[in-house]
């Protein structure tokens, strides 16, 4: 069975303090690994899709990387507005996304 494990469950950072979120996965035939951001009371918002090991994608202060077993979401010099829950999901074959439980990020001024 496909598994997605995210760590840490919660992370508190000072503004400007860079860090990384981890998503480890076991899946047969990875079709794609996805990162979403979810703000309280809202639906998840798409950030990135990664398809193969070695791939990297960037958006503002966020950079996502992928290996054969895990993905990292690097946050460089975060700001309070980056506070949210970050969700990782995998897709195998033509099936719906299998989500992890997320990392709740709080960035304090």
């Amino acid at each position, binding site marked *: 069975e496909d598994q997605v494990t995210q760590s840490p469950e919660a992370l508190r950072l000072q503004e400007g303090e860079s860090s990384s979120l981890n998503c480890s996965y076991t899946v047969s035939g990875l079709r794609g690994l996805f990162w*979403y951001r979810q703000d309280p*009371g809202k639906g*998840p918002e*798409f950030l990135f899709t990664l398809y193969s090991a070695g791939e990297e994608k960037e958006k503002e202060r966020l950079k996502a990387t992928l290996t054969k077993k895990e993905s990292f979401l690097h946050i460089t010099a975060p700001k309070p507005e980056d506070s949210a829950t970050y969700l990782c*999901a995998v897709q195998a074959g*033509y099936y719906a996304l299998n*989500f992890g439980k*997320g990392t709740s990020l709080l960035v304090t001024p």
Partner: protein
Amino acid sequence: DTAVSQTPKYLVTQMGNDKSIKCEQNLGHDTMYWYKQDSKKFLKIMFSYNNKELIINETVPNRFSPKSPDKAHLNLHINSLELGDSAVYFCASSQGQGTNEKLFFGSGTQLSVL
């Protein structure tokens, strides 16, 4: 102009009642989904429809019945509500069948069963 809209935002009801959640997308997407997010924030697929046809039906009690009158709408009807049904239900859409990237989510319906 909201891309994926679902109503109601909040739903509080008694055990045993029947309720519906409506979802509409104006993105022209072919595929729509229902996801359930439990109290631990775990987001799990329930159903997926492509052009009004059911393509994914996870292990969900028969009390849950999705209905897609057209490809822009996917409603969720729940019979005989139970305490364990309390969760946030998200509707989502994507462009093609099997291409799940860029799921667009609605803002969720928080269901509380008393």
